[in-house]
């Protein structure tokens, strides 16, 4: 059973993502939430997940910095950025930091499902 961590400061966006995860068969009990980057870093460092969904702009610590810290600590869990940061340069920055995939908001349920499938098929 796939375990997923959602790191996003918007409670509404976390609920939207949970709904999409439930649609593709992830069980509610296997979904954890973090309301900012610092909590996300702590939870991802102490628990095993199959996928981390990471917002970019959050108070406290940016999602991109959480990605860098996790990769620096040797954590290889697939990470997919889910963000409004749509510039190509940001996509490149995220991939260089260690993110595996990138989904720009707004997204369709089909885009989301396809990117999750891609993200969990490859490990860094």
């Amino acid at each position, binding site marked *: 059973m796939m375990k997923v961590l959602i790191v996003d400061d*918007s409670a*509404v966006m976390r609920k939207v993502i949970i709904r999409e995860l439930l649609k593709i068969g992830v069980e509610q009990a296997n979904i954890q939430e973090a309301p900012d980057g610092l909590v996300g870093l702590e939870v991802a460092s102490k628990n095993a997940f199959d996928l981390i969904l990471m917002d970019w702009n959050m108070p406290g610590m940016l999602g991109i910095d959480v990605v860098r810290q996790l990769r620096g600590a040797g954590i290889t869990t697939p990470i997919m950025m889910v963000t409004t940061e749509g510039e190509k340069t940001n996509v490149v920055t995220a991939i260089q930091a260690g993110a595996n995939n990138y989904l720009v908001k707004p997204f369709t349920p089909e885009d989301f499902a396809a990117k999750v499938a891609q993200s969990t098929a490859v490990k860094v």
Partner: protein
Amino acid sequence: MMMNAAGQSTNAIDAKLVNTLMKAVMEVCGTMAGTQVTLKEVVPSLDYKPTGDISGVIGISGDYGEGMLTLSFTEPMAALLVGRLLGMPPEEICSEDMCDGIGELVNIVSGRAKTSLSEDSGTLYRLSLPSIIKGPGHEITGRPKNCPFLFLVFEAEGHSFVLQVTFRYF
């Protein structure tokens, strides 16, 4: 019309930016909230003083320009959109989710504008974190002095809502 060194108008909102924002509002409401939205009118007048019950405000700035986007809704319109976003009936949307949801909508719309401005200029524009103003019938008139502005008025399912765009190139 006054132009800067890059040939951008410093006293009018760029048509491409308006187009990007119009498409972003329609796309966000359509793909994430399952609500078809149409542009009713574009109003560039100081005399136009729309009101809203809940507004999301976000600042945008870069090397070549700065501005502010304000999306304002009546409470029923906001509840409809946030409810669709969450897959819940509008009457079950709590105040906290309403504010958070409107903040996220203005964040996504602004993200599209930022991407467009950044890719056109070859530099990165930045967004502030969204702020929410809540209060029945507040006026949507705040903008920097002498800054070009426009109101985009949208319609969906018998409701309307307003996007105020203020932006100036340096």
